[in-house]
């Protein structure tokens, strides 16, 4: 088949089987043209003597150009598909150092999970001065540069691309100047083309990450970075963490919800989900050998 649909009537994702990528989402009756992709920014390298020559590092985010796809458009993602009564999963391999498990549960929850496993990132032999990996969601929603982020897990703040509320700002570095800290929520609202019904898309990360909406209908969050120069802000080391002799591997999850922008309960549901992610259930294990079913 050209397309693979995982999930149920209430919540599903559609993948293109040739490219292996998500191309559509259906969330409780709201259809959304939704693409999901991993990209990377290249690190900047300089002598740190002047502002314009600052290297990317532990403190500094100033990517060298716009983001590049992990896989070229012609390269397809290798994937496996698992289906069952409770959950459908797609296991994806995006080249050498990015993998993902996409999960759609069939009962009990109203979000999809994007469980990313990133690393080890290329070492110093890499032609670029380090890479910063992002997870980007692209929709056909017209948002005019507007999006929203949480403020340290509390109120939701309105953001606008290349804009500050209290002064006339001139953004010199387009990506860095529009990145915000995302503690628990990144969302946008807009109208799809040829439609008068608004749609909201929200991404809840499982840890604080940097993120933004750098183009209409787009959200991105940074998941991992490895850089090879010190940025002269005091640490005196490159951000080059290793484990078991290789670059660090990071694993985490993005929880994605969407729905009609008329749904006044959406923000509340996103806040509840963020609480569930922040304070998950704790598991304890004991032997069950003393229990027959009757005793249990």
């Amino acid at each position, binding site marked *: 088949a050209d397309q693979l649909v995982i999930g149920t009537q209430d919540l599903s994702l559609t993948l293109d089987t040739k490219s292996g990528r998500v191309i559509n989402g259906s969330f409780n009756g709201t259809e959304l043209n939704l693409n999901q992709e991993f990209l990377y920014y290249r690190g900047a390298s300089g002598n740190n003597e002047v502002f314009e020559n600052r290297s990317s590092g*532990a*403190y500094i985010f100033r990517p060298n150009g716009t983001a590049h796809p992990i896989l070229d458009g012609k390269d397809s993602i290798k994937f*496996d598909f*698992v*289906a*069952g*009564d*409770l*959950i459908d*999963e797609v*296991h994806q*391999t995006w080249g050498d150092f990015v*993998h993902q*498990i996409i999960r759609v*549960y069939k*009962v*009990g*929850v109203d979000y999809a999970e994007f469980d990313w*496993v990133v690393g080890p990132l290329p070492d110093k032999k890499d032609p670029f001065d380090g890479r910063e990996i992002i997870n980007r969601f692209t929709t056909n929603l017209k948002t005019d540069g507007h999006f929203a982020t949480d403020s340290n897990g509390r109120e939701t703040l309105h953001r606008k691309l290349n804009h500050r509320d209290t002064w006339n700002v001139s953004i010199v570095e387009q990506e860095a100047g529009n990145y915000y800290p995302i503690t628990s929520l990144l969302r946008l609202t807009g109208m799809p083309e040829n439609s008068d019904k608004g749609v909201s898309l929200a991404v809840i990360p499982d840890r604080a990450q940097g993120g933004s909406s750098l183009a209409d209908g787009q959200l991105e969050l940074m998941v991992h970075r490895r850089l090879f120069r010190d940025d002269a*802000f*005091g*640490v*005196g*080391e490159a*951000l080059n*963490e290793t*484990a*078991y002799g*290789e670059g660090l*591997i990071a*694993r985490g999850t993005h929880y994605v919800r969407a729905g009609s922008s008329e749904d006044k309960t959406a923000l509340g549901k996103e806040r509840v989900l963020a*609480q*569930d992610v922040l*304070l*998950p*259930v*704790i*598991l*304890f*294990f*004991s*032997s*069950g*050998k*003393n*229990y027959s*079913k009757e*005793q*249990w």
Partner: protein
Amino acid sequence: PDSLELLREAMGVMQHHDAITGTEKQHVAEDYAKLLHDAVSGCAESSGDALRKIFANATNVSSQYNKMAVNMELETCPGLNISQCAYSEREDSFVVTLYNPLARTKKQFVRLPVQAGTQEAQISYTVLDHEGKAVPSQLVPVPSFVRNLPGRTANTTAELIFLAEIPPVGVASYLVNRQKTKNSEGENADYLYADLKSAKYNK
């Protein structure tokens, strides 16, 4: 009280601006990891002690359970994020006790690293809730990019998934049984071939 104080102190240290942002030196980052690991491990033990006391004094269970609860292990598995848990891997029958820290009922999918069978030696699992009712469960394979993570020592190749419901600021226990042969009478039993090439699924 000592372990709680240790975790409080560790969390206090972690409020340092370089800890929050990740701009500390590498050896400091590793020391932070050690501080947190020691503190969290200690609190995991204390949490188990607290649960044992609650179970040993519970009045809505049999006195036999009260006596058994005094010696209940109540271990945690810090490697669950890399699909690793010695308990669920080695035990044929084990109890998962879930604690919900939120002040509302929580439904959460639980994922437990377990052995998958082979075509010759099939394995199935049943999950019972606290009323002895079978809970729907599903086995999914652990992908190779997780199985081969450096530092992962587990031999499990599958995860057992079920939806748990836990009361507000409360606990719920589930009994998981593994059967070494295909259990045709099992309620909601599920099995998974380790050799995925022979696995079949329906539309």
